[in-house]
Every structure is written in C-alpha cells, then in structure tokens.
C-alpha cells in the first residue's frame, strides 16, 4: 500500500516573497500547508533597550528605522507620545504639515504593498508603475528633510524646519495625478481573472477572529470591522478632516486589496484638504525648554548657541508619568508606551508594532491553503520586518 508522509520545508529568511527576513517553517501535505511556524528576530536591533540610554531627542532617528516603508508615521507616533508627556501644543502649520506627511507615508507604504503583493502573485507591471509613483514621495521626503527614507523630520513641539516653497506644488501635483494612476492599477488587477482567482476567498479571517487575534489597520477593516483611529480616537488634528473609512465584507485578500486602494484615494483627499488649510506661521512651539532655537540665533548669538548646546547635550527633562499613544500607521496600530522617571531619557519605551501582532494571524489564515496561496497571505498582511524585530 502506498503511504504518504508530511514534508517540512524551510521558507526564507532569504526569500523574495517574505518581504525581508521572515522565516517560515512549513509542514506540507503535498501542496497543502498543514502548519506554518514563523521564525522572527533576524533583524532585532534592540531599539527599546537603546532608547533607554538616549535622550528623547536622540530616540527619534531610531524610530525612522522601524517601518522603513513609512518612516514619517513612526516619527509621528513617537513625537505625539513625547508631546503628551510634556503637554505642549503644536502650532497649526506644523500640525497640517504633519498630517500631509503622515498621509504621504500611507501612500508610500501602500504603493510598495500593491507593488510587491502583485509581484508575488505574478502581476509584474503594477510593480513597475507603483514604484514610479512612490519615487515622487521619496523626492518629497528629500525636499523637506534631505533624506529619502530616514526623514527624522518631526520635533517635540513641531517640525525640524519649515518646508521649502516648492513643497506645496509638488504634493498637490502628486495627489492630483495619483487617483488616475490608481485607476490604472485597478484596471490591471480588479477584474483580471487571474488576480481574482488568486485573491477572492484567500486568507479569510472573520471579524471576531480578527479582533481576538489583535489585527489592526487595513487587515482589520478588510474583515468588516469599522475602526479607524484617525476617525474614532483622533490625534494630531485628524478631527478637522473628513474622509471615508472603507470596510470589507468577505474578509478575504481581495477585500483587503479594495480597502487599501480606497484608503489611498481617501489619503489623497485628506492631503488636498490639508493643503487648502495650509497657512503661513511658525512650525515650532514657543517652548524654549524643549525646542531648539532657530538657526540664525544659534549662529549669531551666544545665548542661542548655549541654548542649542544645552538641549543637544543634556536633552530636556520630561515630567514623570506614563502614556500610551497609538496612531493609525499604514499597517495598523502603531503604539508607543513611554514610562518617564522625570529625567531626559525614557525609563522604558515600548513600541507596539502593528506588523508583529498582525503576523500572528498568519497561522490562522494560511493553514489549509496551498503553498502558493501562503505567499498571497503574507502579501496581504503587509508586514515589514524592521518593526517586527525592532
């Protein structure tokens, strides 16, 4: 009598469809995945430990490197948590630019998601198109901060500097043209029979299971849960903007694809509203204990130089207490829990990465699927290992 046995297969960490250094140990019955065990930690850099030894200001560049596909979102969450501890108000112009950049980061992240997700499933054209559009976001990063990825642009109390005059036109041109490009992607994918065969009914997770396992962001909304922190627990001035929150119905990969595409269109609308609101004004709070002095004062007066030196070397003391600040990052809820002991360094900084918790659902979503569909599930969860491993 013929017998069959299960095969154990190692996938990754050096595998293009695992989006970084994710390793999966698969147990296969033929082509059916019977068990999937993720193995993570290849990119662990000890960001939380490092933060305990740096001033609040020096932690900011570390956050750029968490979700490196949307660095500004990480900056935003951290800076809001620090500002909550300090209880300082941010000028309106700084707030508006923060929202513009946070939504640009969402577009940037979702463009990479659609590019790689489609490439994994076999649609290569979308990859080339989406990376062309993403390039504009990278140029905007370069325009405002000088770096294409590690922006390090926000400061407690506002921004590191005002945006250059050409910023407004560049962003406006981008959000005016992007919906047309999104139509092109949808034309390539939405009614494409191969795309539908690969995504409809793939990676189904019910709303109850999604909440139970802690899914957040587009993965949660794809399962039909109407929850968006930007609307439901507004932060950073999101309450001033009107936008729709898309939700899925069938809880599958196709619905999550639709949700993210609508999210991109809504992000464009938020950016347009923000650009219309953008008025001249200061971009840093009037709070000399925390904020760096303007560069003219540092270069031209001894008081300014001392002031700059004091903040750069000692940092600023942050009141004792603990806060949690969650933001709706492109991949889900990114949370920062800071415990301060009243000194200029965080006593404990906990980063709650959305991808880490979302990846946990992989086992539930991929067990019983074909091995090729597993790749689609990894793509639809949209994980980035930089923030999983920290």
């Amino acid at each position, binding site marked *: 009598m013929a017998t069959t046995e299960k095969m154990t297969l190692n996938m990754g960490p050096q595998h293009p469809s695992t989006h970084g250094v994710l390793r999966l140990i698969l147990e296969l019955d033929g082509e059916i995945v019977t068990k999937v065990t993720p193995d*993570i*930690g290849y990119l*662990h850099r*000890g960001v*939380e*430990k*490092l933060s*305990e*030894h*740096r001033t609040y200001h020096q932690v900011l560049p570390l956050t750029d490197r968490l979700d490196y596909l949307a660095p500004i979102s990480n900056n935003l969450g951290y800076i809001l948590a620090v500002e*909550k*501890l300090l*209880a300082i108000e941010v000028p309106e112009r700084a707030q508006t630019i923060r929202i513009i950049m946070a939504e640009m980061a969402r577009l940037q992240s979702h463009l990479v998601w659609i590019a790689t997700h489609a490439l994994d499933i076999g649609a290569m054209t979308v990859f080339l198109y989406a990376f062309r559009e993403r390039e504009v976001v990278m140029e905007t990063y370069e325009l405002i901060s000088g770096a294409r990825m590690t922006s390090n642009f926000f400061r407690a109390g506002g921004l590191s500097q005002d945006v250059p005059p050409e910023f407004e036109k560049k962003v406006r041109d981008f959000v005016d043209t992007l919906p047309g490009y999104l139509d092109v992607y949808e034309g390539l994918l939405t009614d494409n029979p191969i795309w539908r065969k690969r995504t409809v009914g793939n990676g189904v997770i019910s709303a109850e299971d999604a*909440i*139970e*396992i*802690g899914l957040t962001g587009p993965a949660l909304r794809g399962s039909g*849960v109407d*929850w968006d922190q930007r609307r*439901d*627990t507004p932060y950073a001035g999101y309450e001033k903007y009107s936008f729709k929150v898309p939700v899925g119905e069938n809880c599958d990969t196709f619905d999550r694809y639709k949700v993210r595409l609508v999210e991109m269109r809504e992000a464009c609308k938020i950016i347009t509203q923000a650009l219309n609101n953008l008025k001249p004004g200061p971009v840093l709070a009037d709070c000399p204990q925390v904020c760096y002095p303007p560069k003219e004062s540092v270069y031209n007066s001894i008081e300014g130089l001392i002031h700059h030196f004091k903040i750069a070397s000692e940092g600023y003391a942050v009141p004792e*207490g*603990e*806060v*949690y600040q*969650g933001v709706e990052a492109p991949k889900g*809820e990114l*949370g920062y*829990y800071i*415990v301060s*002991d009243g000194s200029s360094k965080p*006593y*404990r900084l*906990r980063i*709650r990465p959305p991808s*880490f*918790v979302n*990846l*946990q659902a992989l086992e539930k979503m991929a067990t019983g699927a074909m091995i090729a569909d597993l790749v689609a599930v990894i793509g639809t969860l949209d994980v980035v290992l930089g923030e999983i*491993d*920290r």
Partner: protein
Amino acid sequence: MAENNRAVVRLKEQFPASILDVTEFRGEVTVTVAKNDIIAILAFLKQSLQYNQLTDVTAVDNLGKAEERYMMVYQLLSIPNKDRLRIKTPVSETDGRIASATQVWETANWLEREVFDLFGIVFENHPNLTRILMTPDWEGHPLRKDYPLQGPDREPYKGRLS
C-alpha cells in the same frame, strides 16, 4: 476623574480586594491590580465591559525603584466604546511568574513570548513559551535593567563618545 470611569467603578464592585491603585494621567486611566486576580479581571473586562481587543502586553523593570521588581502592563481597547484602559500588575523578582493571558486573548501568545524573551518573566499555562526575538540559545534577558547595553562580556557602556 478616574474614580468615575465606568470600568473602574465596575471593577471596584466586582474585585474590591484586588484593586491596588487607580490613577489618571493625561487622560489615560491606569488600574493596578493584584497579580492573583489578573486573569479574572481581564476576562471580566473583555466579557462584561466590551474591552474586546488586547492591544499590547509588556513589562517594565523597576530595579531598585519599587518593592516588586517587574510591572506587567496590559493595554486594552474597547472598539464599541472607543475607549482605552491600562491594567498593571506587579510581579516580584523572586517569583517571576504570572498566569498567561492567552486563555482570554489569542493575541497574548506572541506578546507574552516577547516579555518572556526580553524580561524573563514566566507565563504559566502558555501554549508555547519560547524565545521569539533572540536566538533560542541566548543567555540573559536584554531588557532587564541590570543587563548591560553592550551585551555580556564586554566593556560597560560609558555614554556616547561623540
């Protein structure tokens, strides 16, 4: 005020002996509870008060600052009520054990593995309590305050030289 918070009122009714402290800071309510009742309290919050999502589980090492060395921190979110709550519970250094919240939320699985990995707190009845970020043969628990930043067997950290 924190005392009037709906969840705090109900918790005080239900578990009068286990509520050690209630604080509010920057609009966030934190309830410190006794370790023995943690699972009952989390389950009560989930089932009766609609705190349906466990956002985060983590720990803080209060070495030399508090009587009980570790503080477990659970961040809860109520999607229907758009409300957050933080539950904390102290764990002593000599004991170093706490019941696993995986029986209440599946989310706790990896989050508790991370706490075990980086703090060395043992979770009882956890389905798979192994290291998650560090390698399986790693010695020590890096997020403990007495673990050197540069790693073991190296010169201690003397501050940034630049």
